[in-house]
Structures are given as C-alpha cells and as structure tokens.
C-alpha cells in the first residue's frame, strides 16, 4: 500500500461492495423487487421504493466514460504517480453504473473515451482491495 493513501471506510450500505472487492468480485446492489441496479449503495430503491435488495456479481467489463490527468499539487500519497490518469468507467450492465478508478497495464497516452476495460483488484491494505481497470484483451 501507499503511505497516506485514503482508503474506504465501509458503512452498513457499502460493506457488501468492499467485501466483494476483497474476495475479487465486483458486486452491484440491485433492487429485489424491480431489479434495477443502483450505485452508490443506499437503503431503498428510488424507482419502486422497495427496501429489499441483493448484491449481484457483475461482469467487471466496461468502457472509459471520462478521464483526467492529475498533476501536482496532489496528496503526498499520489505524488510519485503524477501525471496520474484517473478514469470513470461505465459498466456494461447499466448506463448509470459508473466507477472511478485508475488504469493499469496501459500508457497514459492510450487512454481515451470508449476504451474497453476490465476490472482488476489491487490489495492495498489487509482489509482493503480496490477495483482498478486495465484494457480488455481481444
């Protein structure tokens, strides 16, 4: 892990997401009544107002929806990585499901909107794995 990198503090709504990442599975919350996906995690479905939900493993495939290149000044934890690309990935399951992450196995110059990517899990602490992204092969 990187000293001083901010790490997620799971709460009662988000804990299944982070526990899934720890096991190497990308899970998304889904309404048990109307089957709508939702992110960020929350107690009820804004579509049908059901309080029942499940956590389902999704494909882990998506495309880059937007991206930035962060330059100094950044938090000290990220200082060695600048210029640092951060991407927003839209999952193939649903247009509203978008995750912020970093790209691996990819030069900064090759990042573009529409780039097909897949999730890779990066262990950053005993209890935390972060979902990051790499270009899809084939």
């Amino acid at each position, binding site marked *: 892990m990187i000293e001083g990198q901010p790490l*997620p503090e799971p709460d009662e709504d988000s804990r299944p997401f982070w526990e899934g990442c720890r096991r190497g599975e990308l899970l998304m919350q889904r309404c048990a009544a109307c089957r709508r996906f939702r992110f960020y995690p929350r107690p009820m479905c804004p579509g049908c107002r059901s309080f029942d939900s499940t956590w389902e493993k999704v494909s882990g495939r998506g495309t880059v929806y937007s991206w930035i290149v962060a330059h100094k000044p950044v938090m000290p934890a990220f200082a060695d990585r600048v210029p640092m690309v951060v991407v927003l990935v839209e999952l193939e399951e649903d247009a509203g499901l978008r995750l*912020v992450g970093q790209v691996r196995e990819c030069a900064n110059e090759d990042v573009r909107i529409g780039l097909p990517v897949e999730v890779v899990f990066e262990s950053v602490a005993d209890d935390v794995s*972060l979902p990051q992204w790499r270009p899809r092969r084939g």
Partner: protein
Amino acid sequence: MTTLKRKAAIVGIAHLPFSKNIGTPERTNAMRVTMQALDDAGLRPEDVDGMVKSGLEATSEMEMCRGLGIENLRFFCEMGYGGGQGSGAIAVAAAAVASGQADVVVCWRARNRGSGGRPWAKTGWRVGGDQQFYSPFGCVRPVDQVAMIARRLMHESGITSRDFAEVAVACRAHARNNPHALMREPMTIEDHQASRPVSEPLRLLDCCLETDGALCAIVASADRARDTRHKPAWILSAAQATGNQTVVMANFHKTPFLETPTKWVARDVLRGAGLEPGDVDCAQLYDAFTPLVTMTIEEFGFCAPGEAKDFVRDGRLLAPHGGLPINTSGGGLSEAYVHGYNLILEAVRQVRGTSTNQVPGCETCLVTSGAGVPTSAFVVGA
C-alpha cells in the same frame, strides 16, 4: 400563486479586504464584517432578529449574538453544500422575512481559506460517505472532480479549452477595474492556454483563487428596506434544488450525465421573477471552475444546449455592452473565491448602479451558486 417577489430586499453589503492571509481570526472577521454591512444599510445590531450561517463557518449564531449584543434572535439556520449555498442563504432569509419570522436577517460567511490550507489536503486516511468511492482512486480535489465532467462535456458538445478560457478572460477583464480584486494583471486566451495543467483537461487559469474572505449581506423586509441608506436590491425570486442523483462535486452517476440541479433553479427563479433568459441584464455565475459557467449558461437557457462554446465568444460575457455580462467584479476566478458570496454583493452593486463594471440601466441581476452540487439561485431587481 404565492411569490417572494419584492417582499424582501438586500439592503446592506460589506466585505473585508480579500487576501491570501488576512491576519485576523475568523470570529473577529465575522463580527466586523457584519457591523460594516449593518452600517452600509443604516441599521444597528439591535435591528437584527435573524441570521443565516454558512455551513463552513467556524462562528456560531450564539457567538455572533454574544459579540454583536443581539438580545433576541428569532430566526436562524445553517446552509450546507459549500459553493451551492450562497444564493440559498438569501433564499432562506427572504422566506423568513416574507413569512414574518424575521425583519432583518444577517447572511454571512467568514473563512480563512487562503491561509488555512486546502481542504482536500486534509483528506483522512479512511474516508467514509460518498468519498469512499472516489478519493481512494486519486479523484480527491474539487478540480479533479470537475475535470472529469469537463472532459465528457468536451467530448459531447465539442467545447474546447479555449472556450473555457473565454470565461476566465472575461472575469479577469472585470477584475482589472475592481480595486478589491486579487488578480488584476491582464490575461489573454494565450495566457490561459500557456498556464500549467492542474487536472487535464483543466489548467491553472480554469481554477478559482484560494482566499481569506469575510462577507455579509443584510436581508430586510419591505417595510424596513424603505428606510435604509441605499437603494434596496429587491429579491424578485429565489430557489434551491437537489435531486435523486446528486452527489457533491463527484456527480458521476447521473443520466443524463451532464445535467445538474441548476436546471431546476433556472426554471424556478426565471418563472418566479417573471423573466425570460433574454431579460436578464447581468449575471453573477458561480465560477469555482470555468466549465461550471458554460454549463450554467446552457442550463439557464441563455443559449441552446451544446452552444455555449459559441455563446461565450466575441465579448458577449463582458460589461458594459456584452449580451450577458457575467461576474462583473471578477468572480471567484479573479476577485476572490469565497463560495460565491462575492457574487451576491456584486449583484447588489449592479442594481444600485455602483459596480466598477456597471451595466448601464441594470434592472435585473441573476446570481447562481455552485453547479453540480445541491444548489441555489436568486434574482435581484431595482
């Protein structure tokens, strides 16, 4: 229809000198600037019976009353969401006045942000709430979050960094005439393009300043406003908005992606004031980052969706004679970044006729707060 129109007015304004390091404590600044705004209105602390506090404010209403010697405060509340709140403070104060809960309401914001360090640099080792989904990945600073939206905006609408530069250059042109503005050196499009990248696609000159600033606006009832020292800036309408897909800053989960709660305050304040976009004489548009301004221009209907890139050219944003003069004191980009409270003060000056970039015959001025957070807006008129 019940309306807020002309039931309350902004009757007093003041700010302490904007600075990178003001050298005096926030609590002192909050009280001093309130005294100055009351004096501007021709009112005394004894007249105050309401307060609206910025959520970022270190000084409580209690402390304000204990210092200012206000015996009985009848109305008080706190506004949240950083740059989204400023116009909301005026909205709430006006509502309190219109409903008879208060007659004279102090709206203030005193914060030493220039000397106090950047809030994002204090991001903790463990982050909860919404932050847990973006900060661990390096999307930590407000500029990173807006850059992510800006890249997509550029992709979808064809707007370019040079178009964003038009906003920064207009704000700087106005700041050059404002002796209180922090940034008064000339700026060209080329200067903007040559400034260093902070979070691509955004450059340094797309970003607001870090400032110590204490500002105050006094909202009073129609009865009280008639006896105050200056021409009242009548509140014609005011609104707040958030929605079921809103996240503070890192608004990445919306469909359509580029819509913000600004679309709702646009609808509500224009309708409330009985104005079409073309009727607005002058606008103070929240400008923590340049793309927020072009997005706001479109959401208010000053141009068609996707056409801000053309709208911002040819001096249209410049006082006195552009089609939509914006941020006539220099805004957050060149006067001071104070969560948009300077925009409130400048709108009052435009209606009084005392701006250093006065729009001739300005009868209506729009003020917006942060796009992409729970937000607010209001219109003042002569």
